């Protein structure tokens, strides 16, 4: 038994090297089985590996929420700031050390709700940071309240009859200031990989809105039987369109 584990460990570190970006002793994550956050973590590691990012030149910053725990998994210097403030923290870091790759991973409630004002102005300043927004359309950690990206009509803890508000148009904010914006989903793995890798390469502010499932506090309430069903719903809902300067509601792609 011991031997097999050693071999497996050797296999993990040798072949799937992108996992080296994570603190192995912290895995598996504490996220719910079927949560999409882990897929995003893997995608980010993969992109880091492709671009040869290292401990010496990369910092990950998070806010608060389920996805706010992301920073703590990285085997790099990382900052877990307060709710909504990952962007100004990251801007402070980048302005002091331009050589650092500064990556934010946080949720839609954190980045577009409580922290929305900072996105508005960071994109105006066009600070060279990459923001990976895990958009699961719900406040997962606090039990399933409506979030800034909750679809109209979607049932949540705070909108049992269906959410009345229009979801936020992150694309419009980023486009207005000529920043990089990409929308993708955790189902479209290769597309998401491209969106994130490109965002890391982009000079200036970049924002990737990655549609992700929260089975525990969103999917269940909306009638999904399991995380797989939620994941497959992205396949049916979203079409890739990389040749447009405005993504329709059901399209994913990159706008520069």
């Amino acid at each position, binding site marked *: 038994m011991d031997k097999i584990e050693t071999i497996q460990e050797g296999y993990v570190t040798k072949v799937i090297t992108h996992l080296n970006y994570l603190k192995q002793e912290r895995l598996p994550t504490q996220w719910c089985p079927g949560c999409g956050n882990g897929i995003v973590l893997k995608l980010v590691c993969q992109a880091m590996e492709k671009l040869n990012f290292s401990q010496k030149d990369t910092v990950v910053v998070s806010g608060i929420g389920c996805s706010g725990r992301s920073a703590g998994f990285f085997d790099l*210097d990382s*900052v877990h*700031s*307060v709710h909504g403030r990952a962007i100004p923290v990251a*801007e402070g870091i980048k302005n002091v*050390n331009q050589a650092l790759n500064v990556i934010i991973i946080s949720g839609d409630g954190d980045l577009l709700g409580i922290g929305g004002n900072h996105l508005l*102005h960071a994109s105006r300043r066009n600070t060279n940071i990459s923001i990976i927004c895990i958009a699961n359309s719900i406040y997962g950690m606090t039990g399933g309240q409506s979030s800034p990206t909750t679809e109209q009509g979607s049932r949540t803890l705070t909108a049992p009859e269906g959410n009345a508000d229009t979801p936020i148009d992150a694309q419009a904010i980023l486009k207005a200031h000529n920043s990089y914006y990409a929308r993708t989903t955790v189902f479209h793995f290769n597309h998401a990989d491209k969106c994130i890798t490109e965002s890391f390469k982009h000079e200036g502010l970049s924002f990737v809105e990655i549609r992700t499932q929260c089975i525990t506090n969103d999917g269940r309430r909306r009638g999904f039987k399991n995380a797989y069903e939620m994941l497959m719903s992205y396949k049916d809902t979203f079409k890739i369109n990389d040749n447009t300067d405005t993504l329709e509601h059901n399209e994913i792609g990159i706008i520069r």
Partner: protein
Amino acid sequence: MTKILLQGNQAIAQAAVKAGLGFYAGYPITPASEILHELVDKKTVKLLQMEDEIASINAIIGASLAGAKSMTATSGPGFSLMQESIGLAHMMEVPLVIVNVQRVGPSTGMPTLPAQGDVMQCKYGSHGDYFPIVFYPNSVDELYQYTFHAFNAAEESLSPVILLSDGYVGHLYETIETKEYEISKRTLPPLGTSNRHFTGLTHEGSLPATSDPEIHRKFIKHLEKKQKKVAKKYNGYEYIENASSDTLLIAYGALSRVSYHFKDDFAIYRPVRIFPMVEDIKEIAGQYKKIVVMEMNAGQYVNEVERMLHRKVHLISILGGKIDLQEIWTKLRRFRRDT
């Protein structure tokens, strides 16, 4: 040493640059804006005008972690907005200097008029337990000097240090001699050198979060011990003895300047490091029958003094931003020995 005419706010900015300020983020607010203005175009300072004070404090937290001595300045309304992240900086142990040039509150209050209503906010403004070091100078010269101390204390304690001022001292012009002060070096290795995790969650070592009460208790104890130890290096206060008086008059900041007028009738104690309170006050106060705290609020520091001394302390409250010698004397004269 050179003699120059400086405004209080300018003195803070110029001293900060000399103390090694590398990054400043701020949002305009009266009566603190001159600090921001003075730092524009300083070659050694990266300056960001942010969208609000919340962004400002968080930007300097990031900047400090990234390796730059960092500062922000504001007044009461902005200081209120910063409170959550002041707690974060204590939890993550980030050295910062935060200047608060007080004005009349609550809320928008009376901008430009001085007040001392943020004294308790300095100590208790953020949620949870922390033990901030707070300096409150009363002259341009002292603001200059204590800006250095604030930066040094921040580095030594790895915590946000608050430099308190008010609309009066901040806008005051005085001629000062700019001396060279000692400058503490950075001890915190910058981001991008390791695999540390800075978090606002209770944590220990590589454990990014815990609900173990023992770890939390240990951490709070550590904060308290560390802050007290560093504070001891900066035992700033002024004491004007008066053997013919049985009353000790305590005042700080703008009002302490007025208190000098009454030194023939009273002994005077002026704390500069207002938190943690300087222990010497116990011995000094022991020599007087009556203790009076005079402050520009409805009674804040008076409670702290009372708590420290375990005895009745009288209050003279000056509200509304107006400093009128006649009015103060009317309130004060009843404490004279011969009445």
